[in-house]
């Protein structure tokens, strides 16, 4: 489903990449920008968390002539008196204006890096309103926003995510180069699809979807759990080879009573000694109590 989203099938979509301090969504966002640029579409980036140089540096290899960067990085609050783009310009009129300035014909994709920055300075209701208007407005084809979920209250994250047509939550994967994406996608018919995929991002920003963990949510066992196998590093052998098993089965143990042993014990061979016992007078053998002579 992740590769579907990267191809950007539907117009009027609003996609949120949610991350936390454990796993940054910045690389996935760059991959999305690169994917849009490779489709020859216009991209407008509202950059608060990343400088233009850093972004263009990260997008090496992608055609960047259709990339328009609106610099909210150097002066987002107007402290130095010549701000390029401030956080307070985040409203429908301003955004439509700056998008229409450069891409008159084709609707463009708007990248917001990040929504968290805006939500810190503009009230959540105003942000939601602007986003909703942008979705309906027509100047913007798709909106892709990055949201640091652990920076806001749950209610704020929830209300912004309700607007989105797709939400990708990134989480750290098992290996260092992998990450897990939990995707919730709402199609126009109202159907909600959820999926979980493991992906990694290559040097050239292509996203490789590695596998789909099964739907039942049976996760791969933790590496720690695997290490806990008690039979892993034994100093002795727990298993038998076939020859060893054969030898083991052949061995007769002392307590086992075979037929030969029984006959040997019961019928002594001729010539061997026998014990004959004839009780004499002193032997007061009592049938009733054979242990009479014992001092008990």
């Amino acid at each position, binding site marked *: 489903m992740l590769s579907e989203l990267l191809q950007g099938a539907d117009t009027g979509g609003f996609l949120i990449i949610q991350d936390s301090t454990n796993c940054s969504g910045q*690389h996935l966002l760059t991959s999305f920008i690169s994917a849009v640029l490779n489709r020859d579409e216009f991209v407008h980036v509202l950059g608060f968390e990343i400088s233009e140089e850093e972004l263009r540096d990260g997008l090496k290899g992608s055609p960047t002539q259709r990339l328009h960067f609106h610099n909210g990085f150097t002066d987002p*609050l107007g402290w130095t008196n010549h701000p390029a783009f401030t956080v307070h310009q985040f409203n429908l009129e301003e955004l439509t204006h700056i998008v229409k300035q450069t891409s008159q014909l084709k609707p463009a994709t708007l990248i917001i890096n990040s929504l968290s920055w805006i939500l810190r300075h503009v009230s959540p209701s105003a942000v939601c309103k602007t986003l909703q208007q942008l979705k309906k407005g027509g100047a913007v084809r798709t909106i892709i926003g990055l949201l*640091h979920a652990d920076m806001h209250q749950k209610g704020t994250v929830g209300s912004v995510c309700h607007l989105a047509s797709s939400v990708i939550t990134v989480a750290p994967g098992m290996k260092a180069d992998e990450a897990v994406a939990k995707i919730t996608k709402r199609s126009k018919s109202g159907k909600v699809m959820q999926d979980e995929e493991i992906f990694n991002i*290559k040097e050239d920003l292509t996203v490789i979807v590695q596998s789909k963990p099964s739907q039942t949510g049976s996760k791969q066992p933790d590496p720690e759990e695997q290490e806990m196998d008690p039979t892993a590093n034994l100093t002795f052998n727990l298993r038998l080879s076939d020859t060893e098993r054969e030898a083991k089965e052949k061995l007769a143990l002392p307590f086992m009573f075979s037929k030969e042993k029984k006959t040997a014990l019961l019928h002594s061979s001729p010539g061997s000694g026998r014990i004959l016992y004839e009780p004499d007078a002193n032997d007061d053998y009592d049938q009733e109590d054979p242990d009479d002579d014992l001092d008990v």
Partner: protein
Amino acid sequence: MYTELNSILSSTPDSFTQGEFILVSDRQSDASFLIHHFLSFYLRARCRVCFLGLVQSFSHYNAVSQRLGVSLAQAKEKGQLIFLEGLTESLSFLIPQETSTESQAMDFLRDPTVSLRHLYEFIRTSVSSSGGGGEGGAEEWGPPVLMVDDLSVLLSLGVSTGAVLDFSHYCHATVCSQLQGNMVMLVRCSEEEEVDDGDDEGSERLLRGLTHRCSLTLHVQGLPTGYCRDIHGQVEVCWRRRQGDAQNTQRKLFQYKVNDKGASFFARGTSSAVL
């Protein structure tokens, strides 16, 4: 400067990554030994250092640095070090004397609701004036470095978390991005692990906000098993910038012991007292 930490971070005063934002944090422990490390490191690397000392007096930092083989007083004289002594500065701001020239840097003390804009402007002028140098025959210094010890003091003084985040954003944009310098900031967390989600303000949120932006974090914690004489705690080093194919953060955990003139770092369980 601790050479063991240098080899962990694979940096030397002669060659280190520029444009880095290093976040130092601690919980139930004291990470100020790392601040002293980075201060002496960057002074040895001939960087121009702007130090925001909000916790201790200049003589304290000077005394510790002397043990690490760097003289702050000399560096200050040469113009290599710009030291904002928060303690005396705030006092002279609150009780103005006729002789002292009042700086605007600490004006958030009067009204914590205003932004830290003037403090930022102080930093901007001090880090970007590196080229000229007022005194004759000023030496050429390397990339600028901003160090803050520590940001959570600002929270205690009544500044909101958002304002501190804005302040650090501007510092990041100016020092790391524009001037390709480095930035080291210390944040102290409250003793409790995690307060509830509804808590909007606080050092936890500040730490999370800064963690999203930094390229390297050093998180110092006490030992989970309690006090130990031979191991003072553990430090989690976490590289957040993309390195090669590893897109996620790379973490390493070390235990440390701070000595009189240095600190030793070792893998977990390999303390000389244990082995």
